């Protein structure tokens, strides 16, 4: 059985920063959890009813209230502001690397359709080609996904890349990430999208830059044959 609190290995550039933030929260909440639960148990044992014992008449303490209002406030606000940089890095459209390789990705019941721009690097031209349920990308190069949905809301989830973004019909949402090593990784749908939702999986295939060019050329040739 898997009772691990460790994040699985990550293969994207911002993954380690996101995991680090997770561990910071895990440490803070872990310490607060053990401290409060232990104090709670100590109180329960120490102040349990016994014959002749009387509770002390204490109505509260303003000092204590100030302390346990101020400390949590400072901790959580620090967390929020500490997280802002990473959030902007991942999500702010203005911060998506300009040289990112573009792919259009359309979610529909119950498959993912990736469109590549072909040799001319222009979408909407005759050398575009589509790949179903497979996202082929080069390593060490930012990828920019233009995410869309055809029918209902889906959610583009790449667990190993720490990427998740809903695909909403009628909207185009940019998503970027950069793979740090080659290999095959799962692509999942994380938003209930109908009865086949659980089957809406795919694969991310990360190539070395040279292999990716080969793959592109192969697809290109195939597309021209069709």
């Amino acid at each position: 059985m898997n009772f691990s609190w460790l994040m699985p290995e990550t293969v994207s550039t911002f993954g380690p920063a996101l995991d680090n933030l997770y561990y910071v929260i895990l440490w803070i909440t872990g310490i607060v959890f053990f401290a409060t639960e232990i104090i709670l148990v100590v109180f329960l044992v120490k102040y349990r009813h016994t014959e002749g014992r009387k509770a002390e008449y204490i109505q509260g303490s303003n000092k204590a209230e100030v302390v346990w209002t101020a400390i949590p406030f400072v901790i959580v606000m620090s967390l929020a502001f500490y997280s802002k940089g990473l959030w902007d890095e991942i999500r702010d459209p203005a911060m998506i690397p300009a040289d990112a390789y573009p792919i259009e990705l359309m979610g529909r019941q119950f498959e993912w359709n990736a469109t590549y721009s072909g040799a001319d690097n222009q979408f909407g031209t005759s050398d575009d080609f589509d790949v179903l349920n497979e996202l082929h990308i080069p390593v060490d190069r930012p990828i920019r996904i233009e995410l869309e949905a055809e029918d209902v809301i889906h959610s583009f989830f790449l667990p190993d890349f720490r990427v998740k973004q809903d695909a909403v019909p009628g909207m185009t949402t940019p998503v970027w990430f950069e793979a740090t090593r080659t290999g095959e990784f799962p692509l999942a749908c994380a938003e209930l999208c109908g009865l086949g939702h659980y089957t809406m999986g795919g694969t991310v295939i990360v190539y070395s830059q040279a292999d990716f060019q080969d793959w592109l050329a192969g697809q290109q040739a195939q597309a021209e044959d069709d």
Partner: protein
Amino acid sequence: MSTTTAPETHAGHAEAHHELGFIRTYIFSTDHKMIARQFLFTSLLFLLVGGTLASMVRWQLGFPGQPMPLGGGLPDTMAPGGIILPEFYNSLVTMHATFMVFFALMPLQAGVFGNLLIPLQIGAEDMAFPRINMVSFWILPVAGIIMLASFFVEGGAAGAGWTSYAPLSASGEWTGVYMGQILWLTSLAVLGFSSILGALNYVTTVINMRAPGMTWFRIPLATWSLFVTAWLLLLAIPILTGGAILLLFDQTIGTAFFRPEGSGEPLLWQHIFWFFGHPEVYILILPAMGFTSEVIACRSRKPIFGYHSMVIAMVAIGFLGWIVWGHHMFQSGMNPLLGMTFMATTVVIAVPSAIKTFNWMGTLWRGNIHFDTPLLHAIAFVSLFIIGGLSGIFMAVAPVDIYIHDTYFIVAHLHYVLVGGSLFGIFAGITFWYPKMFGRMMNEGLGKVHFVLSFIFYNMAFFPMHNLGVQGMMRRIYDPNQYEYLQGLQPTNTFISISVFLFAATQVIFAFNFLWSLRAGKEAGRNPWKSNTLLWATPSPPPHGNFPEMPIVNRGPYEYSHPDAEEDFWPQDAPPATSGSGGQPAASPTPEPVPGD
């Protein structure tokens, strides 16, 4: 001190009581205590429905594709040969949440205890609008029947999740569910009126009908929590109702409020839903916080630590709850610039929750803690709410939420708040106030066995869900084994499912104790817990009109172990300590338990 000296108004009601027939007493009753009991029995039945649906969900996840025990009786459209179909699974997930949220946890808290506690704790003879109160209850079974009926129409029950995201929910072509989705929205729109009418009553009653001396800061925290909850209901439910009606139009008459093909906006539904939905989260937990405060103060024989802070924290939660809804939508495609705003407001709401937790612990500190069943459940509330509160910080921090959003981490979090928090709080409330409702005590031995087993199996069931989420397992997945990277989690899922079944089986002990004690429980007397609030000055159960004479409130609700009082409690209506008490007439009945009332 008997009815002979009772003021006119109260005596009048007491007499009227005798003239009422069976139907006016037990069915179309306007007595808030009877309505509370009606809410209790009805919502416990719906809790059973919600639990049964949850068990089926867990069967599929624990033993995917295997025939469910007793499942052979289900029609082939749901589970042919007992094997749950994907479309039925989606309905199960949706309806489990729907029944638990709208038909169990809401009425169990606001419905049952709003009715029982508010008039009795503030010293009123009934609600401000008793007939509206009756209507408020009777809407619940009507809405419940509509909701249940949706299982049996063509296409089955709604399967777009309890959040009912459009456009999935907006057209049957995406789910195969047409009538079921329409009935789902209709039922919730109807049920909304129950909450609105109830809330209207609670707000009016608390503002206008407090006994003399019951100042705002002498109101017990349970009533305070229900008062704040009532405001949230009054303001939030109409938003859901409005949204539901628009979605119903999209489904039935071809409008496009939320469907993109007519320039509609799918995210608009999410904004409406969560603008209602986040206050709703506090509707689902604030009353349980109130019950916990009552029980912990009474059973540790100590004033509640920081009464004013507790009130301010609840009011703060009531306000902050309105400006955090965007954290449900961090990954929705909402403008990412809003992320920082909602992250900041969301983490701030951790502060009043922390204040409440520390004040409960402060109340136990140097107390004289009596470990009866209600106290055990209240402690469970505090210890599990700590977990639910802390796990909330992970998803409040938007970058981390990218990974855990829509995974089992969220499922773990919400069940720590709504089962570990609300349900244990409800158990604390039921076991604490049962003697006032029914005149008899529940069995302590059975109560403790039920508590211990529930606490263990509960944590075995829900704690490992955090780990599933960290491993990347999504919510609302019919069969995680479809994904290779999730196949290793099957043993954990099976373990969780078995724990859920054990948790569910343990509730039989509670049901038996509850029903058996109605007849065979020890007579409770007026004040079995030696508590201070006005409620305990009445006979158990209180007669129509509640108080033989108007109580006069002389102090706050938590004067336990006061140095000037002879005993370790000092009821709110007991006369002042200075024995000669001047020209004041004797204030109230004696607090001693009167057996056989």
